[in-house]
């Protein structure tokens, strides 16, 4: 009986991190700020929010609240590109997605730096990666209390990321 409990504790230590709610809003995951940041991130910044289910679900709230679904729909893509597939034009790692959201991209992606607070951008980054199944199913959000938009993020299989060269700005696709 004791071994079971010890095993449960060790195996589930990730549980502490996964379930952490905010005592205070944790500082942004990494120090990548400032507009001069290059478009394609060199350093693989590690987004601590990706281990926290509460932060990812907050990211899902902002995704809808800040009308990301206006262009990207529920991740399937509309005016904006699809976010749930394996094609990433500007990099699939957290830092690149952070740069995309914060400083915008050609062909209509607005810059949200200064508008959306930094930690909320990092939560959005974590959620966007969960759209293509990059996060483990115990952390990715399940369905919302809204019209069902297909499989909940937690049930999606992990897409194998295939980088795609960025199209030239201004080129009509």
């Amino acid at each position, binding site marked *: 009986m004791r071994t079971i409990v010890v095993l449960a504790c060790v195996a589930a230590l990730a549980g502490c991190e996964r379930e952490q709610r905010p005592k205070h809003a944790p500082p942004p995951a990494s120090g990548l700020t400032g507009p001069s940041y290059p478009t394609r991130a060199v350093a693989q910044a590690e987004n601590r929010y990706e281990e926290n289910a509460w932060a*990812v679900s907050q990211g899902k709230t902002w995704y809808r609240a800040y009308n990301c679904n206006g262009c990207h729909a529920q991740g399937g893509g509309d005016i904006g590109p699809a976010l749930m597939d394996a094609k990433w034009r500007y990099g699939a790692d957290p830092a690149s997605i952070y740069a995309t959201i914060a400083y915008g991209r050609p062909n209509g992606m607005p810059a949200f730096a200064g508008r959306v607070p930094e930690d909320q951008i990092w939560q959005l980054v974590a959620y966007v990666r969960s759209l293509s199944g990059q996060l483990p199913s*115990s952390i990715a959000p399940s369905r919302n*209390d809204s019209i069902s938009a297909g499989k909940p993020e937690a049930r999606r299989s992990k897409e194998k990321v295939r980088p795609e060269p960025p199209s030239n700005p201004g080129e009509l696709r």
Partner: protein
Amino acid sequence: MTVSDPRHAQYADPADSAGAAALERTWRDPPGIVGWFSAINHKTISKRFMVTTMVFFLLGGVLALLIRLQLAQPNADIIGPDMYNQVFTMHGSTMMFLFAVPVMQAVATYLVPLMIGARSLAFPRLNAYAYWIFTMGGIMLYAAFLLNAGPDAGWFAYVPLSGPQYSPGKRVDFWAQMITFTELSGLMEAIVLITTILKLRAPGMSLNRMPLYVWAMLVTSFMVLFAMPAVMLASTALITDRLVGTHFYNPAEGGDALLWQHLFWFFGHPEVYLIFIPPLGFISAIVATFARRPVVGYPAMILALVTTAFLAFGLWVHHMFATNLPELGKTFFTAASLVIAVPSAVQIFCWIATLGSGRINFKTPLLFVLAFFFILVMGGLTGLMLASVSLDTQLHDSFFVVAHLHYVLLGGAVFPLFGAFYYWFPKFTGRLLDERLGRWNFWLFFIGFNVAFFPMHVLGLWGMPRRVYTYPAEMGWGDLNLVASLGAATIAVSVLLFLFNVARTLRHGAMAGPDPWGAGTLEWSVASPPPAGNFEVIPVVHGRYPLWQPQAEPTHVTGMSNEWREVLVTTVADAEPDHRMWLPMPSIWPFLSALATTVLFVGSIFTPWAIVWGSVPVGIAATWWFWPKRSVVQERVRTEVPP
């Protein structure tokens, strides 16, 4: 201080006769570590069950103290909102699911076979499996709590807060799976108790000679069969909503938030009666013994139990008076909630009449029962206030309800339970709990309880809502909350005193003979603690209080084997001997099946496929559990008599 009564000598003293030694060898638990896990003797499993539920009671109590510490002062920051939500949810879930209902079944699995003159429960291995499943469920919930994954949506986890969108992570999943564990255990214990009570009574103990406590357990077990499935369905639907995206509770896709409340409270209200009816049995047993006379109105008491059981299923909507359900429907439930007070009133009047027309032996068990008349009656009356729709709109989900539920649960269940421990402790361990410490324990508990919970009525009326982790200083609630917290501390002291009393008594308490209280029911006709096979010879019963009534022919049963676990199966109504049956031998497989079931349940929190690959070990373990041992079967076939 044993009662020198000739009739006891005949049964009570098995030490010398050879038959008793054979019985002891047959019914005792196998030795060693594997033997410890293979034990299926109903008294061994029941003692472990009682200790486990009392450990959860203490854990729940510590959580309660943490809550009272945080609420003692306005704007306190001892624990933050997130930790407070986990603490009060764990307090509620522990007390309701891991303590209140299971402890009543634990005590019953010890006492029922002894009171009906049987050597064991009907399905001893199923009883062991139910205990292990319960324990592993409790361990899972507390492991989750220690890993910051404790549930935080309240002990009744209303959707959509407990739904997939507003409770991310695995917290509510652990809560819902804990429901699966405890309800599975409760349902199996109910089946074990019903079959034992209906089929294994000693010859002559017809239904109208069964002790009132056994009636209470029979009624409770039948209620379990029809109440617990509702919460299993509700929690299964919640888990599928959260994990595989079904839409039972999603208003946008056809679901409904009130569906959860209907399903939960259809179980919820009968559940509080599952907690309340067994103590009615304790009180009947204790009042009869300490008033030195049978309880007044045996048929009236049984009718009252059965009426309470049926009515309990008809009033769940009084938990939902503040929702937008139609007003006429609510008034029906007001009427039903008022009517259920009648059977309880009849029982209280019968007990008062018994005390009035008897001769009172003032001992601690009776003190705890007398507290019932003060605390439960006040709780019942505040319940009548909450039953009225219009009053409930002011009192619902306020601290008035917190006061009411603690008055009925502690007054109706915990006080009689402590009385039952003081009353049957000599039978469990052979030693009498100390009277002086017992009185200190009682008065500290009684005073501490009232100081802690009576002010909450007033706080509720002053508008303090339930489940708030803090409150502004200028609301004027600080003083009464401080008083309540001091009361809670007093309760803690009295429970510590109880533990000290138990610890001291186990080592050098006064030796109690078979019948220290001079009681009338069968469990007092055997030694304390009872031998492994309970009765050296199964008695034949001729009345409701066998030890108080003159002995009649025939006195006992012969022809039962002492070398094999044989029990006498009797008919349901009149308990006439019907046939002999061999019970299964101790086996490790119930424990292993429980382990496999735990792996399946916990695995299914993380992936639905766990149900598929998890059910293979469960199937295998259950098959090994069922598969007969060739040597035992050959022995049985040799002495087999077809019907």
